[in-house]
């Protein structure tokens, strides 16, 4: 058992390393560099050269990469080239914001989508099933920014119940936190709920076609008991994977919501860092996202293994 975990963690570290090389190469290929980005339109050749020298950008790419890697292994994330501040300081606030938003969204979206998927699978073809299928299809096809803009238009501009941007970084009370984050959470929930609900429904319906379930039906076991007691655990594998993927997305991919609501999170930080070619910051963000994915998928796989006794005691 533990061997599985260790192997997966080992592969995760290798993946992280490969990602760091790819991100570095990718950012290097882009035209322009941080000196030009900082100076913007005031970039005269000598000002650019001066800043490059200051930031040690005139050394070859491989040297700079190795420097960054050795610092990382020592636990030093480095200094942001554009802001001249330690990266750990810049990221900690943003990471906290991202995690809060992700956690609250997950707390709402995961139970809701599981419930929806279960309800739909209970009576396939029935009213609830049709409602779930159509609404999730609708949510999947409507772009996130459209949903965000509509919600802002209705709740912030017209009704003025909720703020249009989530600016407060300190919250005086839980109620204020809820009001500030209500719209972003709603928007993100609509994005992730569709996948999870549909996958839950599909996985359970798939299990329902297996012979032992047929046996249970023939025995006269009520449908609800079959779904909840006999089928659910076997459907855990794919469901947990989809949940993990969506959680990882909530940590690293919510650029649109962060832009529309001006929420100071990690996704936007990375996009801004890329457009400023701020290499250490880009790498730091990439490492965080990558680690989040790896850990979440690992947990998902472990849960799938636990849920299925056959996999637990496999020869591995």
């Amino acid at each position, binding site marked *: 058992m533990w061997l599985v975990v260790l192997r997966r963690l080992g592969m995760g570290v290798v993946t992280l390393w490969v990602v760091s090389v790819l991100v570095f190469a990718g950012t290097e290929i*882009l*035209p322009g560099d941080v000196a030009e980005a900082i100076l913007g339109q005031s970039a005269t050749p000598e000002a650019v050269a*001066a800043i490059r020298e200051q930031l040690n950008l005139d050394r070859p790419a491989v040297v700079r990469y190795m420097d960054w890697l050795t610092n990382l292994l020592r636990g030093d994330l480095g200094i942001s080239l554009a802001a001249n*501040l330690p990266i750990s300081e810049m990221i900690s606030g943003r990471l906290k914001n991202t995690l809060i938003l992700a956690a609250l969204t997950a707390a709402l979206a995961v139970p809701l989508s599981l419930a929806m998927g279960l309800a739909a699978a209970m009576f396939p073809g029935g009213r609830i099933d049709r409602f779930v299928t159509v609404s999730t299809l609708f949510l999947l096809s409507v772009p996130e920014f459209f949903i965000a803009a509509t919600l802002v238009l209705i709740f*912030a501009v017209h009704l*003025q119940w909720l703020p249009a941007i989530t600016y407060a970084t300190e919250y005086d009370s839980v109620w204020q936190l809820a009001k500030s984050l209500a719209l972003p959470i709603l928007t993100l929930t609509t994005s992730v709920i569709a996948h999870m609900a549909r996958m839950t429904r599909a996985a359970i319906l798939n299990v329902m076609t297996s012979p032992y379930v047929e046996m249970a039906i023939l025995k006269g076991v009520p449908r609800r008991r079959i779904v909840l007691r006999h089928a659910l655990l076997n459907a855990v594998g794919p469901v947990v994977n989809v949940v993990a993927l969506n959680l990882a997305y909530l940590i690293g991919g919510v650029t649109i919501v962060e832009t529309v609501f001006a929420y100071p999170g990690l996704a936007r930080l990375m996009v801004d860092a890329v*457009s400023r070619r701020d290499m250490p*910051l880009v790498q730091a963000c990439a490492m965080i996202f990558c680690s989040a994915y790896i850990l979440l998928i690992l947990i998902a796989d472990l849960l799938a293994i636990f849920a299925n006794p056959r996999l637990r005691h496999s020869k591995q």
Partner: protein
Amino acid sequence: MSEKKKIARELERSSDIASLKVLYRSASISRRAFVSRLAALGISTSIAGFIVAGSPVAVAATPKRGGRMRAAAGAHGPDDTLDPARFNSVINYGRGEQFYNGLTRIDESLVAQPDLAESWETNANATDWVFKLRKGVEFHNGKSLDAEDALYSIERHLDKNVGSGAKAFVENIAEGIVEDKHTVRFKLKGPDADFPVIMGTYQMKIVPVRTRDFSKAPGTGPFKLMEFKPGVRSLAHRNDNYWEEGRPYLDEIEWFGISDHNARMNALLAGDISMMSGLDPKAIPRVNKSNDVRVVNTKAGQYTNFAMMTDRPPTDSNELRLAIKHLQNRERILKLIYKGNGMLGNDQPISPVDPMYCADMPVRAYDPDKAKHHLKKAGMEGGTIKVHTSEVAGTGAIEQALMLQREADKIGLKIDVQRDPGDGYWSATWGKTPFFMSGWNMRPTANIMLTLAFTSDAAWNEAKWKNARFDELLTLGRASTDTVQRKQIYCEAQQLISDTGGVAIPCFIDYLDAMSEKVKGFIPVPLGPLGASQWPRSVWLEG
């Protein structure tokens, strides 16, 4: 509703009258001035009466103290800075004006006003400038302002380790001397009658001598820094020790950026912010519909232009450049792309708000026949040419390129519009491809703009246009202190650019900002968005 009232309501929708109403309502112009300007627009006095009646004026223009202002600029990011030498965008200029002062301040007529320097004088040929500093001014950390601080703050832009974007402004300084505790003298290499105006630009802020760490924003400005997170926000409290009597009025300022322009507008409409810069012209009707917010339109010299490099084919032919210039349907561009918020341009960078604008030069008319004639002379009839554009090139850059494509099609010239990604546009496309689009903010003086971007050896001469007579004219212009003579000199310079230069400038674009009706005391300075960011010292919140 009576006929006249109906007409009045119709007229109010035009942007000229809307902007006049704004000025009147915010008590920037008197009722008499308002009515006479309406008459100048050709509106009869009786209808003007209805327009006036529909515009309740701010009853008292006495400032109210107190309140927290939440305001937003557009782009912001992890490179937001408190070091004046690195200021290069509205998000930074806003902080500059909250925490710092300069020796001078540029007012709404583009004239230098005393700020930290109470007076200045120069010799006959403008090569020797002496500034007398105000006494009793203290920095936020308690240190008294003296001439050493002024000298250090200006000279640091010359230090290449500082990497200042404003180095070009101060390269003309040969020597700076501290004459006594409150007097500083600058000896210039070459004459510059506009030197006091340069001392009022965004980057020329005064900091204590030997300052290298700007994280506490050590300035003399109307507000003190409480909190700063780059790419997130800054929080400022009123400086009770501020040297300007009675100012500032606000208690606190929360200043940040909202990059998405829809989100920014929504935040204003929802009341989350009181003031924003960079309103999209398409959003004006939406903002006008609300009674709680207003659009503020400042006539300015910013522009989005076509740049045709004169040192490489095919744009090295002046005939082709003239053809492109004649294809510019300026009125249409102004009306359709900028919704009337601007002024017609004449293929040269000095706008009507600049005192040196050459009003005698007729605006080049849209003339497809002349364009075709020039095209034939260039030998490019039926030819193809590619223009690079991007949304970061300037407001309306993509739309202008598409419009040119349509016009060129009519005379048999095929224009390929290539939309480049914004990322890296300035390093890969600008100044590297023969035909591209670009955008410029106006500079405080004609001399600065022309020297920065049009002299033969200027680093930012995007069309690589070289003209010896032009360089000569600029040198003469700098040395002269006679306004009439300077106007003549700059007029000839503008003509040269318009006739032979590498830029096609169809129009100048107003700065469009929006703010809550509660914001009073806003002064529209044409140098930049949000009144060149000078709002912190003059604005107050009503109600």
